[in-house]
């Protein structure tokens, strides 16, 4: 056993990490450029910044009274949990990550990467990193803008809430949630795009699964991105009517356990994606 471990570490040490690092940097730059600076990404900008636009209108048009700050805090929590996690980041990541492999097969340009001296696993992981950077840049900056605009109208009370109260802690939690949501949904959609010619129907199933997941047995709740993120919310959202289904209280889990659980889920999905990437064939005629 010890000898096997020694061989494993020796094998790892012999890998061309320096070359992989150079290739990874270049690949990520190319992919981020393609993800963010293309007309096809316009609708993802829209998904990310539509709440920002609405909050900006709210800032300009509505009166702000310090006593209403807790209402706006709840509204912001609702936007994060009900819009960003359920819809915005979900569909944004569907657009970004399903393009990375399947989109390039549809555009018939993936072979250029497969014909370069880059290990396929490195290519897949770099595409995932580039997709994650793109999604986090869009949704993370939208989240920060939402937060700033939400409290900007309250003047000194708002500043006090953010810098001397729980504000910054909440912002950190929201940004962490958005980052984890991007990574989690990104990994899932990257895999789905490799498994299905059209990943959208499968994504709709995932959306349905995420919606009914809170009422599933606890073991099944672990196979869900949103269920982990729910435990990281700094402000609990109490919703009525149909939204109640989206905010069902699940088995309490600590923030660290939820983060670790989600990272394990992401790692498992990426390992399986790497396995599929190895045997990926270019047969554009079937696309």
């Amino acid at each position, binding site marked *: 056993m010890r000898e096997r471990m020694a061989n494993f570490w020796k094998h790892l040490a012999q890998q*061309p990490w320096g070359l992989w690092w150079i290739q990874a940097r270049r690949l990520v730059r190319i992919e981020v450029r393609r993800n963010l600076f*293309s007309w096809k990404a316009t609708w993802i900008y829209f998904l990310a910044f539509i709440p920002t636009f609405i909050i900006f209108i709210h800032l300009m048009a509505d009166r702000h009274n310090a006593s209403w700050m807790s209402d706006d805090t709840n509204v912001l929590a609702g936007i994060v949990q009900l819009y960003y996690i359920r819809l915005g980041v979900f569909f944004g990541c569907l657009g970004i990550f399903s393009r990375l492999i399947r989109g390039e097969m549809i555009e018939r340009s993936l072979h*250029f990467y497969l014909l370069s*001296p880059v290990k*396929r696993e490195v290519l897949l992981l770099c595409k995932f990193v580039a997709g994650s950077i793109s999604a986090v840049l869009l949704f993370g900056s939208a989240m920060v803008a939402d937060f700033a605009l939400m409290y900007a109208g309250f003047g000194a009370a708002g500043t006090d809430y953010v810098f001397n109260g729980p504000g910054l802690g909440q912002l950190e939690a929201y940004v962490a949630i958005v980052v984890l949501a991007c990574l989690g949904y990104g990994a899932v959609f990257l895999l789905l795009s490799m498994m299905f010619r059209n990943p959208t129907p499968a994504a709709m199933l995932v959306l349905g699964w995420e919606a009914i997941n809170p009422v599933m047995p606890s073991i099944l709740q672990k196979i869900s991105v949103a269920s982990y993120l729910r435990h990281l919310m700094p402000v609990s959202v109490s919703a009525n009517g149909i939204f109640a289904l989206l905010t069902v209280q699940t088995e309490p889990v600590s923030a660290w356990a939820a983060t670790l659980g989600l990272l394990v889920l992401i790692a498992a999905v990426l390992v399986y994606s790497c396995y599929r990437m190895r045997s990926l064939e*270019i*047969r554009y005629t079937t696309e």
Partner: protein
Amino acid sequence: MNDKIIFEDVSKFYGEVLGVNRVSLSIPPGITTLVGPNGSGKTTLMNLMTGLVQPSSGSISVMGLSPSNSPELFRILGYCTQFDFFPRGLTGWQFIFDSLMLHGISEAQAIQLTIEAIERVQLGEAAGRKIAGYSKGMRQKVRLAQAIAHHPRVLVLDEPLNGLDPMARAESIALFQELGRQGMHLLISSHILDEVDRISDRVVLITGGYLIAEGSIQQVRQEVREKPMQVLIRCDQPAVLASKMFAINHCVEARLHADGRGVFLRTADIDQFYSMLNGIAAEGLVKIEAVAPADDDASAIYQYLIGSDGSAS
């Protein structure tokens, strides 16, 4: 290191559709042309040796490397595919430069190799424009530039002359010949058979996923012994020569050359034909100026072995 491209009993099925079946090949350095009708399996063979598809059975080795070992393989191999698509929004320059940067070389080196590749395919100032605005010939050139930019030892070219105007075609052929002379492996698929003749050291004929023949054009023609060979004889009295040959019951077909100063004779036994021709020449009745095989070219072999409809005879 093994300097050959080797296919050992390779089959590829796309579901129930046959790509290639039990192909065994050993390709030495030089220019080798894959000849066959559409859907015969040429591109499948190229995709198999570059790892874009995996064989259903059998094994492939490119100069001792497995196609699944992409980091090593694509340092020595360039593949100019026939897919006429490119990553969105790139200029020709960016496309070649980005590809080179994935080799892990320095930016300065990548710039130098990009300039060199652009000059080699004579893309000129068009390299600075978006590929989306390129003509078909320019897109073919930029693909070729990308494939040769890193100085590969094996170059795989799928229909590289498609879409090129006569001038660009002549330039490309000259480039292929130069690369072949430098000891590179060039594997080319082409429909343009008269140009295949000019550049190939070897041909591989394939149809319906089956390998029909391989070797130099002359070797392959020799192997097709059951098909009568056609010889063009330039002489002062072609009609007399034809009648003489028919009189000794040797020729199976005769056709006068359009200029009236030669005759095409078809014979089932080329060795006996030449000895009889020597006899007629010695008699002095006909003054023979030149003798040349008229059908040991790729086009004739293609017609014999594959047929104009693409079905093997």
